[in-house]
């Protein structure tokens, strides 16, 4: 895997601000646990905490979000260098989708609309768990579907 062309490619990816995909998987794992706790306790405060984490990750970029920082300072120094880097735009967009769902969940649990809270948080758990387990990005897929919906209304 570490051919000269590959090394050069990694260098240019790093220069373009690409990030370690393992950081995303790690962040998705923590996100899943936090969302699961919020869902089981139906607790708006736990969910609000996760919503804030999503918001910071969207604003600062996924590698600089709270969980991304934990990965970089505590985990990554113990790992071998990444074989591949990843464009940060898809996970960033997914964090935005996560933010929308968790805010909906907060409104649901805090406002007594339990069904909204359960469904919104449940969807967020599915997306985070899929990301943590097999690296799928459901939020990214929502992008194309959203574009299709928007353009069909015109």
């Amino acid at each position, binding site marked *: 895997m570490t051919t000269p062309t590959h090394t050069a490619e990694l260098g240019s990816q790093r220069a373009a601000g690409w990030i370690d995909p393992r950081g995303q998987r790690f962040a998705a794992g923590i996100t899943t646990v936090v969302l699961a706790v919020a869902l089981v*306790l139906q607790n708006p405060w736990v969910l609000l905490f996760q919503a804030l984490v999503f918001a910071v990750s969207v604003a600062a970029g996924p590698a600089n979000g709270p969980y991304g920082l934990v990965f970089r300072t505590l985990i990554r120094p113990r790992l071998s260098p990444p074989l591949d880097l990843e464009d940060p735009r898809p996970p960033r967009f997914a964090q935005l989708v996560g933010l929308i769902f968790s805010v909906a969940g907060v409104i649901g649990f805090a406002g007594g609309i339990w069904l909204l809270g359960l469904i919104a948080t449940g969807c967020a758990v599915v997306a985070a768990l899929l990301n943590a387990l097999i690296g799928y990005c459901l939020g990214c897929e929502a*992008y194309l579907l959203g574009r299709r919906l928007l353009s069909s209304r015109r």
Partner: protein
Amino acid sequence: MWVGLVALLSAVVVTVAVAGYRRRTDGRFRRVAPTSPAGRSDLLRLSESDLGRPLGRDATVVQFSSEFCAPCRAAERIITDAVAGHDGVRYVDLDSAHRMDLVRRLNILRTPTVVITDRTGRVVTRTVGVPTKQSLHQSVQAALSAGVSR
């Protein structure tokens, strides 16, 4: 609290089902019926003007990508490798957001979706997700022979 536990359990079951289904089907090409359900076979034929560049002489591999799509790059790498040996096979990578007409015509729901056409532009096989090397190879061969038999 039990309501929350049931909700969490449902979410986990849904996740495992989705992950299992996709693991089995993603990246494996399936034949496309010669006519669409409405009987409009012309909908499943891609032309030079659809693609914005000429079709491959023998077959064309068309990938639908999008801006927020990490696996699209992996797909690009695999397809570029696979078509390198065939000069009659052209690879076209389209940004779905700019080609919503084609996205709707071919009913594309997620990226990457990869379709392979024969030399006339008729869509022969398609898949979603990153193509497996073996399935891609077989499908290119199938598209080549589909073009010959017409």
